[in-house]
């Protein structure tokens, strides 16, 4: 086995210098000769018929090359097909038609109607202002519940109503369990529509090649998936389309979709025979990039008198906005919420109903944590409400309901196979680390002085990885396996090509640590290649906290194939049986006689350069490719504990302390794990305190700048203490579990629970985010208590 043991070490990220020193290369940094720039004309109305699009004035502006409208696209061959066919042929899902450029009708403010191609982006934007669109406005449907009412305006007339998906599920007998409960707590939660907001928005650059081929550089998390989908939608041969993901400045799930702008860039490049570039600006990002987390959840939970959870029921409405995303369908957020709602607790009776509705708002899809942040928020706040009513401490009610370590593996009521977890250990470790009992004493003393302190606990179990066999039963057409190629050169250097796509996660470092242990090489020996479909085997990119499990499994698999060959070569040269050899740093040594060895570099030289020295019958070269389909799901878990202090005069929330105990199985690099946790918490705090997309009654988005839509900056994130538990899963290579999204899942519930705890003396019911100062102040004020400070 490996003896260098870099797996588990706090290795500094090897990719940091390129990002910190401005050496990274994003789509915007790529300049090609003859390149044109695209500006999109986007709908000014939430819902309207398009009567006419007049581009004459725009086309007359010097520097404008061409203006495309929806009619141009519809009239041109396969591109006239709707931008999606059957990516999610769920028997109860109505798949809407989404043209790349609107024709006939627009359904949200920001929907692309026309594209201007010009010599510069400045000219393109000047010309876009000259494109005249005549609209016949229709009533806009903004509220998802209003969309359900009879007589509501219809977004997609062909469906007959605005409900595109309606499913029920669960197990046991929830009605009976709730009827027999000593206490039933119920409430309605409305989660705040927000979005991924990566520093780099979307970006596309498409260029025609000499043989009728096309190259698309795009800011994506999934280059191969983009290649397959764009080729299919364009009716273009996939082998002639090369998709390259250069450095990407954040994705968070947004960029695992395929966008009309990617299809259009390829189409325009082919039509005009020149490279065409589109860089999404921030305003377009607000309007046109997918939103997330717009859910209405009515939930009730029944307990017996000692706080044992007996059963639960949920009615979930998912607001999908105008269309459904490709190829991860928009209902997924609400469906995942429903599946995850029982969480880490023993639940034997559960029933849910999910309705997904269309409204005249930006399309919604997956964003970090997907349905989990809302599921955990509902579950964890109702746990606290029940504890308060039963006179139990929030920690105690969790102790009584968490699935015990001895009960794993555990099959949840929604059919999830929890292979392993440390929920109760994580809770106890967290309570001890933050001195929970000591906090309660401080809280009592502070209340005497009129200060409002609160503490919030959130325990959750998190789905990660999502292999092919997670999707297949849902009716999803595509897969989710992974691939890796390990290739030695004549000097002993290694090129690692992978199908995952690091866009901030530090895969180069993580995979190199794994490779080093398998092959006896150093981290700096590894060159890392990703994101270019012409250089890597087919893979599914990075999303769903999958890479260390799926990509890591492929990397180790490929490495072990190569290692077997290295052993055979060493065995031949050293004249020792392979089972008597082992890997040491930089060499293969004879067990018990380490002075007898063969350098890894020498083995590479033999295999790649001097192949006449190979054992008889051995093929030249030292490389291997491994495809690997990971388990359907792996489960990480964590406890988050947030402490807050609220200014009673203004409602402002401060977070003096924040603690996480996380368990993602075996850690490859604790430093990267911790950074991922803290990054996720920053986003979770955005959800909890700042981010909210607001629409007016006409469907105009009111939050279209970073002055109106607030995200936490580095200065707004408190110090976070991260503690670890490592519970390996038997399902994966190395016992790893997915991680990455967890921070964003735990933070909203932990903060909401802490605020509710601080405001408990006022009898305030805290159910909505973000907890901005006015909302918190009203929770205090409208309870009728004294607000002086």
């Amino acid at each position, binding site marked *: 086995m490996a003896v260098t043991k870099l797996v588990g070490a706090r290795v500094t990220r090897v990719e940091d210098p390129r990002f910190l020193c401005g050496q990274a290369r994003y789509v915007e940094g790529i300049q090609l000769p003859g390149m044109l720039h695209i500006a999109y004309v986007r709908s000014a109305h939430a819902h309207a018929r398009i009567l006419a699009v007049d581009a004459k004035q725009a086309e007359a502006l010097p520097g404008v090359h061409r203006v495309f409208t929806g009619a141009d696209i519809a009239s041109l061959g396969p591109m006239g097909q709707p931008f999606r066919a059957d990516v999610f042929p769920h028997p109860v899902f109505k798949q809407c038609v989404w043209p790349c450029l609107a024709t006939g009708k627009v359904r949200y403010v920001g929907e692309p109607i026309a594209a201007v191609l010009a010599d510069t*982006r*400045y000219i393109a*934007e*000047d010309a876009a*202002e000259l494109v005249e669109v005549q609209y016949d406005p229709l009533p806009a449907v903004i509220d998802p519940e209003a969309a359900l009412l009879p007589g509501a305006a219809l977004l997609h007339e062909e469906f007959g109503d605005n409900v595109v998906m309606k499913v029920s599920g669960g197990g046991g007998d929830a009605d009976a369990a709730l009827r027999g409960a000593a206490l039933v707590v119920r409430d309605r939660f409305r989660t705040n529509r927000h979005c991924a907001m990566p520093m780099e928005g979307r970006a596309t650059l498409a260029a025609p090649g000499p043989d009728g081929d096309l190259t698309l550089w795009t800011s994506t998390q999934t280059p191969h998936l983009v290649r397959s989908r764009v080729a299919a939608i364009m009716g273009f041969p996939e082998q002639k389309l090369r998709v390259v993901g250069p450095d990407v400045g954040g994705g968070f799930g947004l960029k695992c979709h395929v966008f009309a702008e990617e299809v259009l860039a390829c189409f325009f490049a082919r039509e005009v025979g020149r490279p065409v570039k589109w860089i999404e*600006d*921030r*305003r377009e990002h607000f309007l046109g990039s997918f939103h997330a987390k717009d859910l209405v959840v009515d939930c009730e939970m029944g307990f017996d008198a000692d706080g044992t959870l007996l059963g639960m029921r949920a009615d979930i409405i998912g607001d999908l906005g105008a269309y459904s995303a490709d190829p991860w369908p928009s209902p997924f957020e609400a469906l995942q919420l429903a599946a995850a709602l029982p969480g880490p607790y023993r639940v034997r009776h559960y029933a849910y109903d999910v309705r997904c509705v269309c409204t005249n708002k930006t399309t919604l899809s997956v964003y970090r944590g997907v349905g989990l942040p809302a599921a955990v928020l509902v579950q964890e706040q109702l746990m606290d409400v029940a504890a308060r009513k039963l006179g139990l401490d929030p920690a105690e009610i969790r102790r009584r309901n968490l699935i015990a370590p001895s009960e794993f593996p555990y099959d949840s009521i929604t059919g999830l196979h929890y292979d392993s977890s440390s929920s109760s250990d994580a809770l106890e470790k967290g309570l001890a680390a933050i001195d929970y009992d000591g906090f309660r004493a401080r809280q009592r003393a502070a209340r005497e002085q009129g200060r409002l302190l609160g503490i919030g606990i959130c325990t959750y179990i998190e789905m990660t990885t999502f292999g092919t066999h997670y999707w297949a039963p849902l009716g999803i057409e595509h897969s989710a396996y992974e691939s890796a190629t390990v290739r030695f050169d004549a000097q002993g250097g290694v090129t690692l090509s992978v199908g995952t796509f690091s866009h901030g996660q530090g895969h180069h470092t993580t995979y190199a640590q794994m490779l080093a242990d398998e092959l006896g090489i150093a981290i700096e020996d590894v060159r890392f290649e990703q994101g270019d479909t012409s250089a890597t085997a087919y893979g599914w990119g990075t999303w769903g906290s999958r890479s260390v499990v799926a990509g890591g499994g492929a990397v180790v698999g490929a490495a072990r194939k190569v290692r077997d060959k290295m052993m055979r070569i060493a065995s031949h040269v050293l004249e020792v049986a392979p089972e008597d050899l082992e890997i040491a740093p930089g060499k293969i040594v004879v067990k018990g006689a380490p002075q007898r060895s063969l350098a890894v570099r020498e083995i590479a030289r033999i295999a790649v350069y001097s192949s006449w020295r190979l054992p008889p019958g051995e093929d030249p070269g030292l490389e291997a490719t491994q495809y690997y389909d990971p388990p359907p799901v792996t489960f990480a878990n964590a406890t988050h504990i947030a402490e807050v202090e609220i200014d009673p*005069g*203004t409602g*402002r929330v401060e977070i003096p302390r924040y603690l996480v105990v996380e368990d993602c199985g075996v850690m490859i690099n604790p430093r990267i794990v911790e950074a991922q946790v803290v990054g996720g918490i920053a986003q979770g705090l955005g959800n909890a305190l*700042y981010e909210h997309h*607001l629409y007016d009654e006409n469907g105009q988005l*009111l*939050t279209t*700048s970073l*002055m*109106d839509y*607030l995200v*936490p*900056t580095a*200065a*707004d994130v408190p110090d976070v203490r991260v503690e670890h538990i490592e519970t390996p899963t038997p399902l994966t290579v190395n016992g790893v579990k997915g991680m990455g999204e967890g921070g964003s899942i735990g933070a909203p519930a932990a903060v909401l629970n802490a605020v509710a705890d601080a405001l408990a003396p006022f009898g305030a019911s805290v159910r909505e985010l973000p907890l*901005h*100062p*006015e909302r918190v*102040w*009203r929770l205090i*004020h409208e309870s009728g208590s004294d607000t002086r*400070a």
Partner: protein
Amino acid sequence: MKPPAFDYVCARSLDEAIDALGRRPGEAKILAGGQSLTPMLNFRLAHPGMLVDINRIPGIDAIRDDDGGVRIGTLARHRAIEVSDSIRKKFPILTAAAAHVGHLAIRNRGTFGGSIAHADPAAEWPMLALLLDAQIEAKGPQGARTIPAREFFTTFLTTALGDAEILTEVKLPALPAKTGWGFEELSRRPGDFALAAVAAIVTLDGKTIKDARISMGGVGGTPLRAPGAEALLRGKPADAALFEQAGKKAAEESDPSNDVHATADYRRHLVSVLTRRALTSAAEKAAQG
């Protein structure tokens, strides 16, 4: 988010800038730090035919002592004010408020005169100019004049400056002895525009309030003084009940509106809390001084 086309003049003297502005009346905009103008250009909310860049005019960024007060040149960067010893000594309220002006990168670039001339009602410098009874000096084709801060801010993002007039310097007159200050601002995040901000100065004579001034930001079309609350305080002994009462009065004198961050009602409530806190802090400092 690319600005529409505009002509650009880089002025080397105030006269050259005034001349350039005069040639395109109503159409030209002054570019100082670009803190507010550049985003407005990129959002295409402003379509000026010409920008007159004043960044290379020498000598208009000085901070000078003047008769117990200070004079701040129009091009003084926020950061220069934040770190000025002279200002820290004479107007520590400016030093404290500077930390609320955007973030460090913005403070390195944005200018004092630019902020006052832009007249955002939620920005710190306009409300402090009003509090400190600043004398705002301007130069135009007709020569130089001085405009008292109370007459300078006319309505939302609008000032008494003429089309071709440039704000050149702001004079802050000396404060009397036994004067303390308080500055209270609530924003969603540090560096954001204020949901509401209140600045106060209190001059004591023993335990009695000899004079008090209150200025409010983010709660009206312009920064506002609270004359009713100020009158209520004068001649009375400084105590918590009085400050509470003055806070309520100031809230009545504010004129906030709704936006995506907060309602008018909440902002009015903030005025009363922040005024009470600012006065309490100001009176404590005055008693110590």
